């Protein structure tokens, strides 16, 4: 019994030396035969900044007009297959060939399915075609892959706001 009390006191001292004192964080502990899972799967893109995937509707928006997205947000690296396809998307959009542009975006997504910019362009094209439900879905998917690209996130937010207004009309 005496031995146990001494043991508890000794353990208490050891625990107090663990460096987490007063911060409310438990000391690191060993598991026995169990692997502690890594905190998160290794992301392949920059981490997502704190945004909620909801259309921002409270900001003032212009009445819905069928216009192309204000400007390309993040053209991918030149000469990559996706950049080549995106250049063709620009040409198709300029020529009013929106369905062809959408198909080119889909080709790009088969090559690079996590490219938020390509999802955003597809959302913009569907918005121009007044296919608001699809535009909304693609914009939300774009947001999930936008990572820390603030410019892209803002463009997506703006598009989602316009989609929300258009859907209400």
């Amino acid at each position, binding site marked *: 019994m005496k031995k146990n009390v001494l043991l508890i006191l000794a353990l208490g001292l050891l625990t107090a030396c663990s460096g987490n004192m007063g911060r409310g964080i438990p000391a690191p502990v060993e*598991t026995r035969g169990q692997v*502690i899972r890594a905190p998160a799967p290794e992301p392949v893109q920059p981490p*997502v900044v*704190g945004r909620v995937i909801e259309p921002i509707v409270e900001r003032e928006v212009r009445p819905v007009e069928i216009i192309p997205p204000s400007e390309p947000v993040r053209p991918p690296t030149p000469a990559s*297959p996706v950049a080549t396809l995106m250049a063709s998307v620009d040409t198709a959009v300029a020529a009013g060939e929106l369905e062809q542009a959408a198909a080119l975006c889909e080709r790009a997504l088969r090559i690079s*399915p996590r490219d938020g910019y390509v999802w955003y362009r597809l959302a913009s094209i569907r918005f121009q075609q007044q296919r608001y439900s699809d535009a909304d879905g693609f914009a939300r998917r774009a947001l999930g892959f936008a990572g820390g690209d603030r410019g892209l996130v803002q463009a997506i937010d703006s598009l989602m706001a316009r989609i929300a207004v258009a859907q209400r009309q």
Partner: protein
Amino acid sequence: MTTSKRKTSSRKASKQPRWWPKYLLRFMLLGTVVVAVWCVWIDYEIRRDFSALQWALPARIYARPVELYVGAHQNAADFTDYLRRLGYIQTTRVTEPGQFNPAGSRIVLQTRGFAFWDGTEPSIALEVGFDGQRVSLLRAIQGGADVPLVRLEPVEIAQINPGTGEDRLPIGKEEIPQALVNAVIAVEDQRFYSHFGVDPIGIARALVANIRAGEIVQGGSTLTQQLVKNLYLNRERTMRRKIEEALMALALEIHFSKEDILYAYLNEVFLGQDGNRAIHGFALASQHYFGRPLQQLDLDELALLAGLPRGPSFYNPQRNPERATERRNVVLARMAAQGYITAEQLEDARGATLQVSARPTSRGGGYPVFMDMVRSDLARDYNADALRNEGLRIFTTLDVSMQASVEAMLDKSVQAVERPTKGEPAPLEAAVVITDATTGDVRALAGSRQSGYTGFNRALLADRPIGSLIKPAVYLAALESGNFNLSSVLADDPISMKLDNGDLWEPKNYENTTSGDVYFHDALERSLNLATVDLGMKVSVDRVAYMLSRLGHTDRIEPYPSLLLGAVNMTPVEVAQIYQTLASGGFRSPLRAVEAVTTGEGEPLERYGMETDQVADPASVFLLEYAMQGVFERGTAKTAAPRLDNQLPLAGKTGTTNDSRDSWFAGYGDDLVGVVWLGHDDNRETGLTGATGALRVWTDIMTKLDIQPRQSLPPADIQWQSVALRPVRVAGARNCLETRRLPFRVGALPDAAVSCESGGSLMERVFDRFRGW
């Protein structure tokens, strides 16, 4: 009286000679009128039909083309196989479109170019390098510049044929090479430009030649007569038909130019048989035998085609190359004799080696399971006549290499897990669905363990209980409710429930044991039935049914408690739709087999673009996926983990139905979603669970397809926290010595009873250590 009688009879006798000419004349007159009417009718018929001549053209179905770019998932062997499917000819020096030269991990080729619905892909000579499973080099031969992206021609996987079974590629007058015209005229009808549809001199010459040879070596029919015979008449050899043929030929020559007649002949003539498909016209024959358009053929190849109408089967260059070469040389000799080619051209062409395309013969019937899905999708917008007759071009999502891998693997893989059955022996059957995890494109389908099987299409039609495959929907509904998280404690204890009909429902775990208190994620990973029912009843069966419909199940669902354990029937394709939505992070994109339809000339008619709809909260789907990855790491699929070492993490779920009648596995990586079903058509027991049957087949297929690991990005409102490894319900009883870090949504963090993140006074931690000893 006697005199009178004699008189009468003599009058009768004298009348007889005058009676016959009268009737004969009338009869001849009538005959002339009939023949005249017949001629007028034939003339009318020819004018009416020939001026509006249109062939019934089959719909052509294309697979998704291979896209080449540096980094593309493609190896040299599969790519070579793809080129062979396209009918490319292997050569040591690439000089023309449709040729390739493999040299180790590099392949030099010249694409043919193709008019896709969204634009034309030009022909290009390329060098393609491979580094294992990836393309490492893509360079233009001309100029040596790197090429960012090249889309190859699509493989034609099937046709929807007209009732006649005829196939052709109509070609414009200006596209017909003059050398072909010369060759055809030289060998079939050398007086074509001087006769009037029927050629008495030609008939006499043929007669003499045949008598001399003692057999039929020449025909006396003109090209015009042959055209009439093919277009309007049957093969009957009667005098009436011969006369009709001659009259029609005359009518054609009166009303139409020689050019028109020749053009129609070149498009109409029968030039070979490919399975149930009849090859008509020189343009299609060129593609069929040489894999190149007519305009790209050399003189020797054109001469070979020109020699085919005499006996398309007898002179088939693929089956009888020697005969075909002899016939080609006869054509060339006639051309030289009639002054169409010089002696030098004759010698060059005669010396050319016959190189024909080895096009696989499976075309037209090689993908029956996928074609069922294509037909079903097209039926929404096109009637059967349009598909059979209008020459539509249909662009689908099928990945021929992936389909070939699945088919090559499936029977062997099913055989490896098959167990003897009770009663009459019956083979275990299978269905497989592989889709693109991002777009929902169907990339491969199997409706039977036997490839090319045309019977019951189990991928689309086997409507079977899905068992535990439903559990992700139960757990997702719970996570979305906000009342549960991955460390919620569920009761895996015996349940007895009185149903509305008065029956008592007493579900059991698969191993007939109970686990007591278990974590939410653990219950899904280990597929615990009792814990799932505990959870589902708290969430409500209606909510689970609603979640299923949001994920993509379209049939009406009866919200009985047994739904929680998968008492709902679905086909493998319907299951794939639900798991597709999970793989997309909660975005439902309807599975798609057809991407676009164009006219035969390439004018777009319809495009079935990708659709997407957010149906579940991304954070909840992320949390669910943690547990579904745990299925491989700790749960019912952990037996597959060693074989999937290069592919993990993957997410998936096993499914087993009552008495092991169905063995399911559905799972996904970053690029692919795969569903495998095993079972018997008569619903007998398989002796397999999801883990011992379908999972093993799924693993075989997915390792072969090199499925890519999941790389799910955590949504912004996800936090990782530590919880005690063992679940407890009582505050202060948890042991933080052994912990696991789990993801949580902000606002649904772990309960204090299990959290090892923030709690813990000094004494509690001391006691944790003490308990750990």
